[in-house]
C-alpha cells in the first residue's frame, strides 16, 4: 500500500484536473501530496522553463492542508485542493503581483481579483504567479522585464504570449491548470504553441475586477488546462456576473461540462478562408485541415465561409488596444505605488523618469501609439475609424453565425519560434496574432485545442463561436479530443 502510494505520488503532477479531482475524491492522495508533487516538479524543471515570476510554496501547502480539512469535513468542490498558477496580472492580496514589469516589481495588492477570490473560496491552491509579456503586451513572453519563459517542447523556443507562463506551466506539469488573460490571443496562442487547451470566454462572462488592465474593452480572463474537460471545470468556477465589473454579463450560467458528450451530429462548421493567411506554415495548415476532416468524420458539416473584414482587424486592434492602454497605464507615475524614481526634486521629472525606467520598450511603444491615435486632430482618422471598423467586424461574425454554429481556424499561423527571432521587428510579432485578434474585437468566445504537430512542435486549432457559446465550443473540442490523441502528448523535460 505504501509502495503503491509512493509510486503514485511521483506522478501526481502529471494528472489532469479531472483525474486529480477524482483521486482526491476517493482519497487516493491528499491535496498536500498533490501540491508537494507539483512543487517538486517546479523545482525539477523551473530553472529551464521559467514559467513562474513568484512561487508561493508555503502558501500553497497551507492552502492544500486547508483544502484537505475542508474535504474531510465534507465541504469540497471540483477545484478543492487543485494546485494552480495565476497569471501575474491577476491581483492576489498580500502576494506580489508584478505584471512582469519593473514598474510593479515589488507591488503587493491590498485586494484579490474576483476570479482569485472565487478560486480560493472553492479551495484551489496557489502555486505561484505566471510569467507574461510585460502588462500583457507581446506574443512571446520575451517582453517580461524579468526573464523569458521557455517552451517545454523546445527550450530554445518561445512559449507564446502574453500568457506564456500559464501555457508553459501547464505543459510542463508544473501546475494542474492556470489562468491567463486574452486581449488579442494571449491565452489561445501560447496554448497552441505549448500543446495545451486555452479558452478565451465571451467578453463579460468572467469578471475583470482585479485584472490589471491592458485594453479594457478586449481583456478577458480564461483557463489554460491540460484538456477540454479541465477548461470546462475551471470556467464553471470563474464565470458569472460580478457587481464590481460593470461590463460583466448578468446572464445565468450553464454547467459548462454539460456539453462534453462527444456528439457532433447536425453541427455546422464554417471554414473562413481569410484565416488561412499567406505566410502560414504549411504544417500548420495541414494539421488544421486534417482536424477539420476529423470533425467532419464526427458528423459535422463543414462549409467554406468568408469574413471579409478580417484583413482590417490587425490595424483596428493596434489602434483600440494601445489607445485604451495609454489611459490604463497613466496611473503608473511613481506617486502612489510601484516603482518611483526618486533622484530629483522636480515632480514632473520624477513622474517622467519613473515611466522612462519603469516601463519596457514594447509598453512604451504602445503607450505612444495610443496617445498619438487619440490626439486631437487624429482621433477621427484613427480611434473613431477603428471603432467603426470594429462594428463591421462584429457584423461580419454575426452574419456568418446565421449560417454556421462555429468556425474552425488555425490558432497561430506559425508554431513556436526560436527565442529572439522576432524581437527586433514588432510588426512581425504583431502578425502572429492575426487569427486571434478579430475574436477579441468582436467580444466572442474562442478556444485553442491541440491538433497535431508541425516541425515537431504543437499546432493548435481554434474554434470560434457566437456570443456565449462556450458550452458549444467546449462540446466540439471535447468530441475532437476524444477522437484524437494529441492532448496526451507530453514534452520531454
Amino acid at each position: 500500500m505504501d509502495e503503491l502510494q509512493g509510486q503514485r505520488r511521483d506522478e501526481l503532477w502529471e494528472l489532469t484536473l479531472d483525474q486529480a479531482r477524482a483521486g482526491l475524491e476517493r482519497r487516493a492522495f491528499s491535496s498536500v501530496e498533490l501540491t508537494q508533487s507539483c512543487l517538486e516538479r517546479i523545482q525539477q524543471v523551473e530553472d529551464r522553463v521559467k514559467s513562474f515570476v513568484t512561487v508561493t510554496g508555503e502558501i500553497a501547502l497551507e492552502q492544500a492542508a486547508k483544502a484537505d480539512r475542508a474535504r474531510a469535513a465534507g465541504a469540497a468542490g471540483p477545484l478543492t485542493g487543485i494546485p494552480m498558477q495565476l497569471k501575474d496580472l491577476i491581483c492576489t492580496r498580500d502576494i506580489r503581483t508584478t505584471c512582469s514589469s519593473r514598474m510593479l516589481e515589488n507591488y503587493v495588492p491590498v485586494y484579490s481579483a474576483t476570479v482569485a477570490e472565487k478560486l480560493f473560496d472553492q479551495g484551489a491552491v496557489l502555486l505561484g504567479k505566471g510569467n507574461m509579456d510585460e502588462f500583457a503586451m507581446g506574443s512571446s513572453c520575451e517582453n517580461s522585464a524579468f526573464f523569458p519563459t521557455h517552451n517545454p517542447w523546445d527550450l530554445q523556443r518561445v512559449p507564446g504570449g502574453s500568457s506564456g507562463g500559464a501555457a508553459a506551466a501547464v505543459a510542463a506539469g508544473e501546475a494542474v491548470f492556470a489562468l491567463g488573460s486574452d486581449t488579442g490571443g494571449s491565452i489561445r496562442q501560447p496554448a497552441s504553441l505549448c500543446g495545451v487547451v486555452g479558452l478565451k470566454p465571451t467578453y463579460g462572462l468572467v469578471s475583470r475586477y482585479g485584472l490589471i488592465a491592458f485594453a479594457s474593452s478586449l481583456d478577458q480572463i480564461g483557463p489554460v488546462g491540460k484538456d477540454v474537460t479541465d477548461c470546462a471545470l475551471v470556467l464553471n468556477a470563474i464565470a458569472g456576473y460580478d457587481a464590481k465589473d460593470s461590463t460583466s454579463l448578468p446572464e445565468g450560467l450553464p454547467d459548462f461540462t454539460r456539453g462534453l458528450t462527444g456528439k457532433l451530429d447536425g453541427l455546422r462548421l464554417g471554414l473562413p478562408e481569410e484565416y488561412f493567411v499567406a505566410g502560414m506554415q504549411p504544417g500548420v495548415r495541414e494539421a488544421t485541415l486534417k482536424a477539420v476532416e476529423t470533425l467532419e468524420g464526427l458528423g459535422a458539416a463543414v462549409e467554406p465561409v468568408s469574413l471579409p473584414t478580417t484583413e482590417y482587424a490587425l490595424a483596428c486592434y493596434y489602434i483600440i488596444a494601445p489607445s485604451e492602454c495609454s489611459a490604463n497605464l497613466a496611473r503608473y507615475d511613481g506617486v502612489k505605488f510601484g516603482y518611483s524614481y526618486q533622484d530629483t526634486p522636480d515632480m514632473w521629472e520624477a513622474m517622467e523618469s519613473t515611466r522612462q525606467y519603469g516601463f519596457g520598450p514594447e509598453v512604451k511603444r504602445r503607450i505612444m501609439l495610443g496617445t498619438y491615435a487619440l490626439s486631437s486632430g487624429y482621433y477621427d482618422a484613427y480611434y473613431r475609424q477603428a471603432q467603426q471598423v470594429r462594428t463591421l467586424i462584429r457584423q461580419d461574425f454575426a452574419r456568418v453565425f446565421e449560417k454556421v454554429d462555429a468556425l474552425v481556424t488555425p490558432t497561430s499561423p506559425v508554431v513556436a519560434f526560436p527565442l529572439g527571432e522576432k524581437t527586433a521587428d514588432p510588426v512581425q510579432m504583431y502578425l502572429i496574432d492575426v487569427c486571434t485578434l478579430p475574436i477579441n474585437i468582436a467580444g466572442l468566445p474562442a478556444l485553442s485545442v491541440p491538433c497535431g504537430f508541425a516541425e515537431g512542435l504543437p499546432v493548435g486549432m481554434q474554434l470560434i463561436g457566437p456570443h456565449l457559446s462556450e458550452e458549444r465550443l467546449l462540446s466540439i473540442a471535447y468530441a475532437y479530443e476524444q477522437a484524437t490523441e494529441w492532448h496526451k502528448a507530453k514534452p520531454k523535460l
Partner: protein
Amino acid sequence: MQYETVIGLEVHVQLQTRSKMFCGCPADYQNAPANSRVCPVCLGLPGALPVINRKAVEYTIMTGLALGCRIPGYSKFDRKNYPYPDLMKGYQVSQYDLPLAEEGALEIDLDGAAKSVGVMRVHLEEDAAKLQHFPEAAGDAYSLVDVNRAGVPLMEVVSAPDLRSPEEARAYLVTLHSIMQYLGVSSANMQDGNFRCDANVSLRPAGSAEFGTRTEVKNMNSFRAVYLALNYEVERQQRILEDGGRIVQETRGWVEERGVTVSQRSKEHAHDYRYFPEPDLPPLAVAAGWVEEIRRRLPELADRRKARFIEEYGLPRYDADLLTGTRAMADYFEAALALRPPAGPDTKTFAKNVSNWMLGDLSRLMNLENRDITEVRVTPAHLVELLALIDAGTLSGTIAKTVLEEAFTSGAEPAKIVREKGYSQINDSSVVEAAVAQALADNPQAVADYVKGKETAARFLVGQVMKLTRGQAKPELALELVQAGLVAIRDAEGTP
C-alpha cells in the same frame, strides 16, 4: 469704442450622495481624517473598476429638469486624460459629447427684470484628490495627497455665453445656487468648495456678432470673489483693447488678497485631453419613464414657492423673499404652518405671526450665534407652542421673547420652560390690583401728573406694575387697573 462684455460660467457642484461616484466609499469626506475614505477603486489601484452611482445620475437628471434641459435617452462616460498627482488614475471619468442633460435655460432676476440665460449642458464626473503643499521654509518643499475627495460625484453646469456683466454673472450664480439647495442635490457651500465656479470672459465691440478672445478665470471662492474678479478682468481686457493690444487666450487665477487676476498658463500650451469613451462602463440608457418619475418628484423651486407664499398665505413680498431664501427656511415655515392649532387664528394671521417670529427674534438669535435654520434647536413645533401660549394669554410678548431665547439655547419645549421657570402671565386681578396699589403709592409724582392731565403718566405706572410683577402681569389688565385707580384718585380729588 464701446465694448460689450461676454461671460459664460462653468459651475462644478459636488453632489451630496451617500457614496462616491464609482465606489462604495462614503462621500462625506469633509471632516474625515486624511485618506480614510478610500478603497481600491477611488485610489485608482491596478485592476479596480468603476461602478456608476445611480443616485448621482438621478441628481444630475433632476438638475437638468429643473433647468429645463432635454434629457437624451442615451448618454455615456468618457476618459479625460491628463497627468497630475491629484488624479489617481491619470484620467478623469467625465462626459464629453453625450452629457446627461443639455439645452436648458435659467431665468435670472435683474432688479425686477427677468433674463433667460442658456444652459448648454449638465454633465457628471468625478472629483480629484486634494493636494496640500508645504513650502520650502521648513526644508525641502513637498506636497501630500489626501484621496478622500477623489471620486466624489461632481456635476458640471455650463452656461451659454449669455451673461453681459459681472452683475448678471452674480445673479446667475445666486439663482443656480438656490436651485441646487432647493433640489437637495448639494450642500452647495462655496467656502467648502462644493460649489465652484470658473468664468470665461471676453469683450467685443458693441454690436459685433463675433466673440472676442477669451480668458478663463479660476480660483473664485465666493459670490463676492466672482463679482470682483470679473469686474477686474473686464476692466483689464478693456484697458488692453483700448491701448490697441491683443488679449491672450489663457487661464487666469483670481488672487483675493491683491484683488487681481494673474496668468496661470497659456492655452497655447493647453492639454490635449484625448477624450475617448470609458471602456469600463457601458453606455447609459436613460429610460423615459425614469426621467418622468424624477420630474414628478421635482421639488417646488424658490420662485414658485415665493409666489405661492404671497398668494396662499397673504404674506408681504418682503417676508416671502426672506422665507424662501433657502429651502430649509421655507420648509421650516411650512412645517410650522402645518401645526396650526384648529382653535387658533386663521391661516393668514397665523402665517404672518410665524413669519414675524422667524424673521424677527429667531433670525436675530441665529445671526448672533451664526447658525442657520437647520442648526436651530427650536423646532417648528416649539415655535407653534410658543405662539399658542401667547394666544392663550399665558405669556406676554415680552416674556415670550425670553422663553424663545432659553429654548434657543437649551432646546427645551417652551411649555416646559414656562412651567419650570414660573413664567406665566398673571391673570388674577387681585394680584395685579395689589401691584397697582403699590405702584400708585410709590409714585405720587406720576399720579399727580396724571391728575393734572398728563395722560402718558399712566403708561409709566403700568411699567412700574410690570416691574413689580416681574413682567408677568397681563399688560391689558395692568393698564385697565392702573387707569381705574387713577380715575378713582382724580375723582376723589375733584375735577379741576
